């Protein structure tokens, strides 16, 4: 274990061995040159940053000004013009005519299920006769009318 006196001796020995290295001759010149160059570059970058931020700030202000005070588009009054668009797709094997929806006459204020329940006889007779015939006719007509089907434009 080293005692305190010994450490003090070492301390003094190191203290007496102090030295100052002399820097190389060109170092000062190099340091000053680099410092001036760095300062110049720093200044250039600073100016570039200021210019860029000024230009971009102006552009943003102009854009916001146009959006706020310029000719803003008026909202359309007739909303049906932009309403939903129905799209029809026709294939060559089918009629161009849209399918006709048969409207069954039912009692006013009642639904279809109720009419079937309360008036079973007349509805059944009508439905069976009208449903059987078109089915047979449609099969024939489809076969016979194939040549009459116009080509898809």
């Amino acid at each position: 274990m080293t005692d305190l006196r010994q450490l003090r001796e070492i301390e003094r020995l190191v203290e007496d061995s102090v030295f100052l290295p002399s820097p190389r001759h060109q170092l000062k010149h190099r340091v000053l040159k680099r410092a001036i160059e760095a300062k110049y570059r720093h200044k250039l970058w600073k100016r570039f940053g200021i210019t860029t931020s000024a230009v971009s700030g102006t552009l943003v202000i102009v854009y916001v000004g146009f959006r706020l005070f310029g000719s803003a588009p008026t909202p359309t009054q007739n909303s049906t013009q932009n309403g939903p668009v129905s799209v029809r797709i026709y294939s060559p094997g089918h009629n161009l005519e849209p399918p006709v929806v048969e409207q069954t006459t039912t009692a006013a204020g009642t639904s279809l299920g109720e009419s079937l329940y309360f008036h079973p006889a007349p509805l059944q007779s009508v439905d069976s006769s009208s449903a059987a015939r078109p089915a047979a006719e449609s099969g024939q007509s489809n076969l016979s009318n194939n040549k009459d089907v116009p080509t898809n434009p």
Partner: protein
Amino acid sequence: METGEPIDFAEQVRHCALELARDGVGALASVYDVTASRLIRYASTLTRQRDDAEDAVQAALVRIALRPRVLAEARYPWAYLLKVVRNESLNIVRRRKPMRRLKVRTKSWCEYVAEPGEQELHSYVRRALGKLPPTQAEVVVLKIWEEMTFAEIGEVLGQSPNTAASRYRYALQKLSQHLHTLAELYHD
């Protein structure tokens, strides 16, 4: 000698820093004249090579020239300057290629900074100092040659004063193993 008047030296550095903040890059020459030798000496303990130490000092002074106000407003301008040099030195050491780092480690840093025509005893002491780990050697340099307090050393290293003090004690114990007989002969 400059090392005998640490307070005056610190004041001198503060004065130079104020000049640099006021006059710009033109006043960097005076900062260089006052501090260059000591900064190279300190950087050499970390880089263990003279060229790298000079590069570190150059990079540090250029950095200071870009922001002179920071140095002027620092609590201990001299400690702040040493800290900047320390950071640059560590950056250089980190950037070194592994093979070159190995070569440098085999040599003592004192071989690079030793002045010709000096006493053999002193060069032996500096060689022993070069065998210490850089973290301990730098504390010895700052404490004995720069005559800084442990609080100031802690500021330079970014550590607490207690850490600096314990590193200093370890360093002295290691040095005493190398220099024990030499110290007795020297003081007799």
